[in-house]
C-alpha cells in the first residue's frame, strides 16, 4: 500500500468519508461537514498512531490537506 493509499484509508475511516472521494489534492475545506475542528483533532491522533509519528501542536494547523500531510510524512522519512 502506498503512503497515499494508507493516508486515504486513515482519513476515510476516521472522518467517515468514502475513500474514493479523497484524492491526492483533497483538503479540509472539501469536506466541511466531516473534516471539522473536532474531526481534525481525531485525524491528528489517527495519523500519529498509524504512522508512528509525534506531531507538535504547531503542526496541527498546517496539516489540513492531503498534499501537506504527504509532504510532512515525506519529511519524516515516510514515503
Amino acid at each position: 500500500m502506498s503512503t497515499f493509499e494508507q493516508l486515504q484509508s486513515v482519513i476515510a475511516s476516521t472522518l467517515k468519508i468514502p475513500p474514493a472521494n479523497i484524492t491526492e489534492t483533497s483538503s479540509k475545506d472539501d469536506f466541511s461537514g466531516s473534516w471539522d475542528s473536532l474531526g481534525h483533532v481525531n485525524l491528528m491522533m489517527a495519523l500519529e498512531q498509524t504512522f508512528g509519528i509525534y506531531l507538535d501542536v504547531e503542526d496541527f494547523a498546517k496539516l489540513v490537506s492531503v498534499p501537506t500531510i504527504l509532504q510532512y510524512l515525506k519529511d519524516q522519512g515516510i514515503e
Partner: protein
Amino acid sequence: MAQSKFAINTFVQTTSRSELRALLAASSVKLTLPQAQDIIAHAESLGAKTAFRLGVIHTYTSDLLDPWFTFEAALQGFDLQIYHAPYGITFQEASKNSGLVQHKPDMTLLLLRREDLHPDLAYPLSRLSPAQQEELLNESIAELLSLVAQFREHAVGLIVLTLLPSLNAPGLGLFDAQSERSEAAWWAKLKMEVTARISASLSSCLFVDLDEVLLQIGRNNFFDHRFWYSSRFPFKTEAAQELARRVVGLGAVIKSPKAKVIVLDADNTLWGGVIGEDGMSGIALGPDYPGNAFVDFQRRLLNFQQRGFLLALCSKNNAADLDQVLQEHPHQILRDQHFAARRVNWEPKPENLKALADELNLGLDSFIFVDDSSHECAAVRYTLPQVEVIQTPSRAVEVPFCLDQVARLEVLSLTAEDLTKTEMYAQERMRREFIGNSGSNGLGGENYLHSLGMKMTINLDCIAHLSRLSQLTQKTNQFNLTTRRYNEHQIGEFINNRNCLVADFSLADVFGDSGIVGLAIFTIRSDNRADLDAFMMSCRVIGREAESAFLHALLRVLAGRGIQEVYAEFLPTAKNGLAKDFLANQGFLAEAEGEYIWDLQSQAPKNLDTFPITVMINV
C-alpha cells in the same frame, strides 16, 4: 507492525460480540483509531443491537471521546445515541425542557474538572490552614452534591459522576504525603464524603473514580498536554478508551441480562495441570510460579463472590479426585462451601450448564463460563450462545486477570444478602444432600423438615430492610402472587404508611441463615378489610413450608388487629405457575378468577405449631 495486523484480522473474524470482547480483553494490542473503526464495523454486523442513550454533561471537551464510546458500545451490542450538552453548561441542563432531559438518556455522565467545585481550587490548597481546608472541603462537597441532586430530580437515567484527575502531581511535591496540608489527602477525603452522601441520599447515582484509571495506566499515559492546551481535551488514546470502557460497561450492567453465576472449569483454570493425571502433588497450586498465579486467581474469584456472584464448578473429572483437592490441598483457596453448585462428571459441558441452570433456578443468560479448552469454549458458544464464555489464558501469569474486563461482573450496589449468597446456596446444596441421605435412611419428608430445626424471624415495617425488600420485588419471579415491582422509594412509602403492613422474614436452620427471603404487603382499608398487595418468597427456601407459616403468622397478626376479611389475588405471569394454587391450598375461598377471600371471623388461621418451624415476630 506485522503482529498487530495479524491481531486485527483475528478480531474481525470473530462470530459473536462476547467472543470479540473476550479476545480484545485477552490481547495486549493497543488499538489505533482506524483499527478501532474497522472493529466497530465488524461488531455492528454481529446481530441485533439494543438502544443505549447516553447524555454527557462536561466542563472539558467530550466529543472526542465519541469514537471510543462507539467502539465500546459496538462491543456490547448497543446502538449508541449520544447527546453532548453545550460546553461548560452544567446545572442549566438539569431542567425540564433541557436538551439532556429531552434526549431521555439511560445514563447521564458528568465529566467535571476538580476546579469546577470551588473558585478557590484554582490556587494552591497548601496555602490554607487545616481549618480553612476543612471549610473549603465542606463547601466543595455541598456544591457537587447540589449539582448532582438537581440532575436526580429529572428522568436522566443512571447518573455517573466523575472528576478529572489532577494534571499535575501535588503542589508540595514529594513532601505532600507527609504534610498536614496534603492535597492528595484532601481529595481522598472529598471523594469519601461525596460517595457516602450519595449512597445515603441519592438513588441511581454512582461515582466512578477516574483516579483509578490514572493509577492503572499512569499519569504520563493519561494526559495529552497538546490536546489539553489546544483543544481542552485531556486524554491520550489509552485513557479515552479506558474511560469509555468503564462507562459503557456500566451500560451493560443496567441494560444487558444480569450476570449471576461464574461457572469454572477446574484443570488449568483453578490450578495448573490435570488432577487426574498429575495428582495432588503434581498440579501447579502453591507459593511458587506458576502455582502462585492460580492461588491468586482463586483469591480474585472470592472478590467476585463478595460482589454477589455465585461460583459453580463444571469439570470433566472423577468426582473423588476433585474432592480431594477441594478438601485436602493445602493451597486450595476455594473449598466445597464456596461453590453454589457443581457438576463433576464426563457429560458434555453444555448439558452440565443446563443442569446447573435448572438446579440454581437461574437463566443461562446469567452464566459466565470460564474454561481453558478452546474445544469446550467453542462447544458452549455454539450450543448456548446466551452464555458469556471466557477462555482461561494459556499463560499462567495472565490467568488472575482474565475476568477483570467482563463488564457484567461489575455491580452498582450490594445488599447483605449479596455478600453471603454463595454461602446460602452451598447450605442449600448440603440440605439437598441431607435429604438424599435421610431418604435412604427411611426418614420421611416431614421428619426431615423437623430435623432442620428451622427458626423464622418475621419483621414488621422494618425500614432497615428497604433495599433488600425492593430487590426481592425486582428479582422474585416464581413464587410471587402478584409480581408487582417496587423501587426503594415505593417500599419506603408502604412502610411509613400507617394503613399498610409490610412484613418480611428470614429463615435459619442447622445449616445457616437464609437472610431475608420473603415479603408480604397488606393495605388496610377502613372497613376492617386487608388486601394482600404483594406476597413473594425467594426460591432458595422453597419446599420447607416457610411460605405457609409466614402467611398464617400474618393472618394471626391481622386478626389481632381487628381485621375481619383478607382479600388476596393471584396474577398469572409466564413464570409464577409455582404459586398458582397456594391461596386455595392454604384455605382461602375462591371468589372469582384469581381472587380469593379469607373471613377471619368464621375461619381461624392455622396454629403455628402445626409447622416444622419456630416463628418469632418482631414488631
